[in-house]
């Protein structure tokens, strides 16, 4: 019991430290002129994509199901914000509140079908639904702008780059705490129980499909919020947000960061984005070798650190203690 409280205290200290550093980070970056402004933008994107990765990990790491269609809900959130703000003159805070709700409804419809299937079949169906939504957005030119996307999403004047960064950080911290609460709750334990042994879960009286669907909807809602936040950052929504390749990003992030930990996917996502941009900054031609770098990185992780960066850290930490 003592061990548990001390490790949770360490978690709180780490969390608060990281949050404080992230809060004051833009003040320093602001001193660096144009480069600083660029990095504030990058950091905002990192925070948003970290939330996206964490949302997927509710299904992937905690639920034990691989969804190849998670970007659909990310995209639905982005288009919700773009459409509400551009066409219905919604204020940002209402549009950002609507994004997870609309995404949750989409996830409820898609999930209702998908949780009926297991393993690879579940994955393929999520992929199919994701691409279906992608095609709808792509083709419905009058409503979604087709492959042009929706540009010129308004930005409230008080939200300069730094203020928007802080808004995203606050939303991220709130979502992190909510996800943490869900994962540690009775519901979270039920989801882990289903992951560990679905057949046995039925025989202790768990209605497996119902909890898988609920989890799918919750994950979709957080993805929708992340999508809405990215839409406002870029001030546009585009079809690429729903594309299956966007679904792969949080999966890779979870693999690299460690899918059996809470913060792992967020860390993995940030590391990948940082590496990609860093390589770009080193030399423009490095953009072309990014796929190779990513491939090698994944190979190393899968072979030598299957629990991801968080698992690696824990192993080293444990060894140094004993």
């Amino acid at each position: 019991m003592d061990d548990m409280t001390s490790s949770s205290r360490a978690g709180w200290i780490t969390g608060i430290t990281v949050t404080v550093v992230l809060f004051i980070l833009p003040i320093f970056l602001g001193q660096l002129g144009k480069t600083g402004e660029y990095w504030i933008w990058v950091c905002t994107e990192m925070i948003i994509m970290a939330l996206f990765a964490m949302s997927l990990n509710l299904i992937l790491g905690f639920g034990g199901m691989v969804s190849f269609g998670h970007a659909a809900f990310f995209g639905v959130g982005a288009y919700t914000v773009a459409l509400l703000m551009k066409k219905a003159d919604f204020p940002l805070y209402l549009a950002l509140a609507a994004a997870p709700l609309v995404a949750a409804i989409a996830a409820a419809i898609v999930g209702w079908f998908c949780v009926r299937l297991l393993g690879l079949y579940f994955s393929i169906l999520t992929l199919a639904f994701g691409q279906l939504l992608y095609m709808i957005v792509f083709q419905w030119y009058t409503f979604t702008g087709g492959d042009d996307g929706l540009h010129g999403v308004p930005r409230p004047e008080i939200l300069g780059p730094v203020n928007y960064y802080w808004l995203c950080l606050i939303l991220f911290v709130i979502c992190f705490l909510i996800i943490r609460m869900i994962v540690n709750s009775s519901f979270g334990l039920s989801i882990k129980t289903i992951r560990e042994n679905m057949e046995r879960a039925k025989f202790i009286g768990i209605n497996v499909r119902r909890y898988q669907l609920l989890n799918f909807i919750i994950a979709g809602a957080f993805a929708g919020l992340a999508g809405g936040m990215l839409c406002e950052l870029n001030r546009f929504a585009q079809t690429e947000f729903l594309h299956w390749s966007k679904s792969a990003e949080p999966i890779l992030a979870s693999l690299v960061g460690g899918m059996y930990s809470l913060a792992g996917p967020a860390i993995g996502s940030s590391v990948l984005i940082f590496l990609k941009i860093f390589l770009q900054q080193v030399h423009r031609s490095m953009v072309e070798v990014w796929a190779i770098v990513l491939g090698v990185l994944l190979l190393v992780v899968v072979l030598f650190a299957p629990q991801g960066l968080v698992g690696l850290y824990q192993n080293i930490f444990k060894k140094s203690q004993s």
Partner: protein
Amino acid sequence: MSEAILSIENLSKSFEGNQVFNNISFLVEPGELSAIIGPNGAGKTTLFNLITGALVPDEGKIIFEGRNIVGMEPFDIVRLGMARAFQRTNIFPRMTVLENIVITIITRLKGNLGFVKHWNSSDRIRKKAFEILESVGLADKASHQSGTLAHGNQKRLDIGVALALEPKLLLLDEPVAGMSPEERWETVELVKELWNRMKITMVYIEHDMDIVFGISQKVRVLCYKTLLAEGPPHEISANQQVIEAYLGEEV
């Protein structure tokens, strides 16, 4: 005669044309500790799968406490008060021993939709969980990852999970399979003690005839797609049909 807790009526099942059961019927009395025996492939586990809803019979009824449960989902049947422990250890390996028991209690109490409180925040549930771990001898291993336990302990945990459902009827599929001789008798003593103390109706499948004839009040023999014989141990061990079909010369 008291009302049967479980009544199997004219049950038939076949897989792709191969008949496993042809018209089986029997009654399980409340409070009995009984064994099901039979040669490999006689369909003992299939029978448990039919009773617990994992499989649906082709024909026949399964009446549990006066209610036909054919076609119900396994998790609904569990909620009526029927639990099972499995032949192959069937636990939640990357969860602690305590988590295995607590989630079962939470599910019995319909608490799965709690989103706010930590799963381990209820003193009442934790106390109950430790009572169960105490009774299966695993209290000192509560914080161990259950998948790392020794085989015998995993089987005890499996039984503990079933007990946490506070069942009226408990089905045990070869509770001592794969155990060392000492572990076997320890587990048999455990099962018998639980049965004495908790007054749960227990039906178990077992191959070890010393155990079967040692502790059962009643033995049922599955063979030739049907219930070959049913009765107290001394009758079964003297039954000419059973000896020819299954027990062989040595008994």
